[in-house]
């Protein structure tokens, strides 16, 4: 596979590992923001290749894990209504709400469908004019443009049976929350390459300056990830704190202007609740009020659902990088992907699920 195999090359991987080992002189704690990177690190066993003085901490960048319990409950409530076709990215179906998950809703005879894109949901809406089609618009900056686009598309097509249940989250406010916490241990960041593809990396410059911390835009293949780590280590050892781009074949400083414009047109910033972490100011996007016709929370009157999560849930500590999945007493005992106790075990990108699948007995 062109453009993938080159970045999985074993010689290159070992070459960068050697360079990291040569560059490092002390212990450093680095967080990869994105769940996709956590997944790749565990899948390829990259953590086993790194010098012991590097501690990788897994960040809150799994959109499935951080979607709040109340949004899941709203999704379940909407999907349970008659004449609704509820559409979602696949791995949201497994996330437990207060009572059941989307699998249970589907098993009870409701129409819940997995789609690859919000635009597939638009097609379903066109094909089923007598049904109400709802798309569960979750995700970071990566999925936001296509989700925003679906609203504009629905408007253009004059669809009156399509709406979004929006629960978008943004990376920079989460980084502020982590770095501003008195418990923070993170000394360097791998920024999520796909998020930066859309947003560029101009947003990260003030963060690096404010907290004096290196931030490196990083891709998802083994060579990309190790290169990101190498850049962070070099900065740390040289006492620098700049934003660097180790994913320049995809990402540029400004990002995708057209995508950012569509986001701006459809969404506005809001405070957002992150499962396991809590409210982070300005960390979400919601539909602007002029798009209320496409807002499922308005259309289905589910605004009042506010369940309370158990205060003992530790996935929040994992999402903030304070503890590792294997430090949880429930890990791989009471808590497995079939019987998840927490969101981080649910999604394939969740840190606990990655540890469970790839790293249990190492």
């Amino acid at each position: 596979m062109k453009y993938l195999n080159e970045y999985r090359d074993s010689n290159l991987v070992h070459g960068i590992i050697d360079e990291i080992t040569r560059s490092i002189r002390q212990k450093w704690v680095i967080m990869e923001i994105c769940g996709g990177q956590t997944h790749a690190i565990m899948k390829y066993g990259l953590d086993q290749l790194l010098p012991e003085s590097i501690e990788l901490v897994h960040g809150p960048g799994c959109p499935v894990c951080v979607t709040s319990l109340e949004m899941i409950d709203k999704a379940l409530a909407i999907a349970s209504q008659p004449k609704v076709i509820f559409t979602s990215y696949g791995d949201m179906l497994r996330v437990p709400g207060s009572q059941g998950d989307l699998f249970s809703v589907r098993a009870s005879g409701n129409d819940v469908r997995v789609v690859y894109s919000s635009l597939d949901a638009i097609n379903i809406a066109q094909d089923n004019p007598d049904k109400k089609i709802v798309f569960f618009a979750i995700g970071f900056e990566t999925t936001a443009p296509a989700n925003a686009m679906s609203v504009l598309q629905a408007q253009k097509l004059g669809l009156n049976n399509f709406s979004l249940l929006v629960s978008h989250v943004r990376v920079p406010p989460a980084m502020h929350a982590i770095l501003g916490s008195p418990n923070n241990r993170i000394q360097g960041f791998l920024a999520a390459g796909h998020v930066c593809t859309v947003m560029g990396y101009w947003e990260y410059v003030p963060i690096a300056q404010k907290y004096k911390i290196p931030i490196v835009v990083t891709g998802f293949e083994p060579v990309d990830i190790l290169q990101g780590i190498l850049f962070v280590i070099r900065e740390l050892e040289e006492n620098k704190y700049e934003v660097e781009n180790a994913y320049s074949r995809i990402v540029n400083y400004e990002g995708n202007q057209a995508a950012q414009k569509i986001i701006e047109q459809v969404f506005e910033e809001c405070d957002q609740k992150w499962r396991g972490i809590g409210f982070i100011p300005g960390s979400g996007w919601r539909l602007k009020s002029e798009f209320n016709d496409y807002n499922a929370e308005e259309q289905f009157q589910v605004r009042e659902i506010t369940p309370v999560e158990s205060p003992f849930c530790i996935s929040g500590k994992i999402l903030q990088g304070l503890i590792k999945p294997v430090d949880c007493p429930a890990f791989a005992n009471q808590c497995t992907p079939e019987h998840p106790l927490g969101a981080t075990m649910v999604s394939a990108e969740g840190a606990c699920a990655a540890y469970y699948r790839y790293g249990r007995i190492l």
Partner: protein
Amino acid sequence: MTDPDPNIEGILCPLPLPHNERIVLGHGSGGRMSYELISKVFFPLFDNPILKAGDDAGLIIVLNQAGEHNPRLAVSTDSHVVSPLFFPGGDIGRLAICGTVNDVSMLGATPLWLTASFILEEGLEVETLRKIVESMHSAAVEANIKIIAGDTKVVQNGKADRLYINTTGIGIIPTGVNISGTRARPGDAIIVSGTIGDHGIAVLAARGELNFQAEIKSDVAPLNGLIARMLDVTKEIHVLRDPTRGGLATSLNEIALQSNVGIMIYEETIPIRPTVEAACEMLGFDALYVANEGKLIAIVEKNSADQVLAAMKEHPLGADAAIIGAVTDRPGPHVMLKTIYETTRMIDMMSGEMLPRIC
């Protein structure tokens, strides 16, 4: 895990969802959820040593008049509910024959007879049924088996998805052949008969829901001919398994569990077609978990492995066969994979339904 945080005693996180009350699609995925359903609902009541052996087919020993154990029969049954009914490389009819022929063959038996039951939805075109039956006939000829009994039921429109087929197969296990999932031993070599994931990706592409197209055909084929060739070389074949739903990863985990052994496979030796690899990459699937319908895993005594592999490669269904790993002497049960970087990771059973990832 010896020093739990005092804060996290008692209730931990959001309530787990064991799905004990209603069947969900994950229960039929062939992975861990299926396994749990079988252990909790079926095994306690259908308790007998033949069923509990947990192989692809049940092994019956028929006593002859002299009270000698002969012959040994392998019996297996399988229901086929694939959608769409026709897909590149096959159709539900061919699948219904090959699936059961293969399950019977996985005990080393020579499959001889099949029964076939049809559940038809009111409104199904007779021409469609005819095509499927023709395909069953040619697969039966190819596998050298006879369909000796059958049943037909019709259900109301909307109560089934056009057509379901159940087949049950019977075969005779030759003298000297002793194959079971319980027989993997440290040192044994693990062979896979060809490229993995072809069937699952072909059907997924044919379904059209995910809006992707792939030039890939299902591998659905009867494997009894290939197995006969392998048994000509040596009787030291310990385990045979066809990695259908749940894929190579799930089948290896089942074997590790049945034999209570450790298994190590080597990433770079596993045959995967570039198109399947690319489709998996795009959809966020792992080819190790994608279904096959014309592939087998053989666990073979180490010294016979090269000979068996050579014999397999001479057969058209084993041309891409490869030794992909070994049974280890580390305490089991577990399956590990050595990556191309010489790092090691766990390979688990598939859990529930295979779901595409968000990004």
